[in-house]
């Protein structure tokens, strides 16, 4: 067995039940390679030093801080939505102001309908509405 294979087998043996044949193979290989066995022993000592002995914690009121964080996040999202649409609201307002200004500039008279661009009713003389008879004009002439 190659040293890397023995090492992997050793690592697996720490949390898995190896079958007897693999276990024997590992022990035999470790006996044959004294240097490797020494290394594996060192690794075991490193592991012992690394292992956590006391439970980890972020300190008091951590859960409450998380809940507050989530609640603040909701307010932030609401504000972001308002801010996101605000620029569209401002753009629309700008367009309306520009259109009113155009209407004021080109209006014949400064009254409310003309400023707001409401269509004005056009009054014409009754004579203008009479139809022009083209054939009658020809025969008369």
């Amino acid at each position, binding site marked *: 067995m190659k040293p890397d294979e023995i090492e992997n087998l050793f690592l697996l043996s720490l949390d898995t039940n190896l079958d007897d044949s693999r276990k024997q193979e590992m022990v035999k290989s470790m006996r044959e390679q004294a240097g490797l066995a020494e290394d594996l022993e060192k690794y075991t000592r490193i592991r012992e030093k690394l292992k956590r002995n006391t439970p*980890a914690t972020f300190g008091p009121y951590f859960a409450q801080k998380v809940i507050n964080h*989530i609640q603040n996040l909701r307010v932030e999202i609401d504000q972001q939505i308002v801010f996101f649409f605000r620029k569209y609201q401002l753009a629309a307002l700008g367009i309306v102001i520009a259109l009113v200004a155009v209407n004021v500039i080109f209006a014949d008279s400064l009254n409310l309908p003309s400023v707001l661009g409401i269509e004005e009713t056009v009054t014409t003389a009754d004579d203008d509405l009479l139809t022009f008879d083209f054939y009658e004009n020809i025969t008369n002439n």
Partner: protein
Amino acid sequence: MSNLKASMEPTNEELVERSKSGDPQAFKLLVTRNEGKVAGVVQSMLGATPEAEDVGQEVFVRFYQSMEKFKGESAVSTYLIRIAINLSLNEIKRRKKRNFLFTREEEGSMIKAPDSKSDMKEIVNYEVARLEPEFQSVVTLRMIEGYSTEETAEILGIPLGTVLSRLSRAQKKLKQSLAKHMTL
């Protein structure tokens, strides 16, 4: 009696369902119950720093935001640890970038360098924090937090063989770096 009490307590999955339907107390209980596991991973990778707590909070906030998508294919704790590892790796990258910009040091770790008064545990933690991130995450899960090789592979989403080879290489690196400080 304690068995009866345990059987009456809601599971993580039940707490997720209750949280989805808008029960903040259920989510608070879920945080309290999983804080230790998340803190273990984050503090092993970043040290017990204020940033570690921020990352810890972010883990649960991200989980809360993605809770609707959580289908229960893996355990809640596995899902949380996966988020914790990813956010810790991001924080390490950020630190490296920041240190590179301001001090030109490529150290991602905020763990204090050991001095003559440091004990073995501090020295080992310092050397683990100096490992490359892919080794650090494997060492944190398997060697510090005690997850099995299979669980480590599941959390990191990598094959079992990759976990074993990373562990093996990490051990060799640790052996070399620790030899400078102590006789093993």
